[in-house]
């Protein structure tokens, strides 16, 4: 078991194993999303308060969940890379950031579009989840901007790792602050927290979507990390051998 993990930290091994793993994540992910989309759009009963507009939940919640999962992935792998000096870990962090930013954007866009029929406006500062997501988008941009500003890869890895860790400590604080702040305003929220338990017909497609998105995130992440690893190791023997032999 330990040998496997040890091997995983070695770039050439990771590169090969990831290639095998990707379809095993992508296919179930797509199937789950397929089921979730169909069931969510056409099978789940209508919400009595929001009508069919509530179905946006089936993309909004997975996106929001994934934006946070991606951040945690980024922060944890950056931390591991920083403490144990594992280059591959830094590559994972670098790869996770743009994915996380995209999911955050998706959460914000779907949240905003959902808000229009619900609140009548394209943006509601009183919704804590939306506001927290916006701040998280800024955190992602900051991370990517710092990486971009430092030319030396190792330095960029380590500096952005410090930033990711500091940011990670602050993410729960940010959520807590925004929730307190918007509770003062008593604004409407997209999803009734602690409201009536969700009908199973509504819940299962949602779980499928969340799980499916997670698998897809995994597949996308592995693909990005492979590209990242290839770039970082471009001058090494194993990469040269790989390219010369026409491998992928």
């Amino acid at each position, binding site marked *: 078991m330990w040998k496997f993990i040890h091997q995983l930290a070695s770039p050439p091994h990771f590169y090969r194993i990831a290639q095998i793993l990707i379809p095993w994540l992508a296919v179930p992910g797509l199937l789950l999303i397929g089921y979730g*989309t169909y069931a969510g*759009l*056409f099978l789940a009963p*209508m919400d009595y308060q929001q*009508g*069919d*507009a509530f*179905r*946006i939940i*089936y*993309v*909004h919640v997975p*996106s929001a969940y994934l934006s946070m999962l991606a951040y945690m992935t980024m922060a944890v792998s950056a931390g591991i890379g920083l403490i144990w000096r594992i280059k591959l870990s830094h590559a994972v962090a670098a790869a996770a950031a*743009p*994915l996380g930013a*995209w*999911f955050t*954007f*998706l959460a914000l*866009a*779907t949240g905003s*579009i*959902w808000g*229009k*029929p619900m609140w009548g406006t394209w943006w509601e500062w009183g919704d804590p989840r939306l506001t927290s997501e916006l701040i998280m988008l800024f955190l992602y941009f900051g991370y990517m901007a710092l990486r971009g500003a430092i030319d030396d890869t190792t330095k960029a890895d380590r500096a952005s790792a410090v930033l990711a860790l500091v940011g990670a400590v602050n993410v729960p604080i940010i959520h807590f602050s925004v929730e307190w702040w918007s509770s003062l305003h008593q604004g409407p929220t997209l999803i009734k927290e602690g409201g009536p338990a969700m009908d199973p017909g509504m819940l299962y497609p949602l779980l499928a979507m969340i799980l499916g998105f997670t698998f*897809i995130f995994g597949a*996308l992440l592995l*693909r*990005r990390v*492979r*590209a990242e690893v*290839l*770039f970082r190791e*471009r001058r090494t023997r194993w*990469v*040269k051998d790989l*390219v*010369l032999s026409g491998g*992928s």
Partner: protein
Amino acid sequence: MDFSMGGYGAYVWTCFIMAGVVLVICEWRARLRHRRVYRDIEVRIKALGDS
């Protein structure tokens, strides 16, 4: 199969299509990056010989 989503069709479908587009973009960009890095390495190896 209520495609109009009780009148909210524009909102709901936009969201789902947007989600699909984002996933496709991410996949596309990842593949593109991989291909570009690979090609750059190929070119450099062929230019410099097997050093």
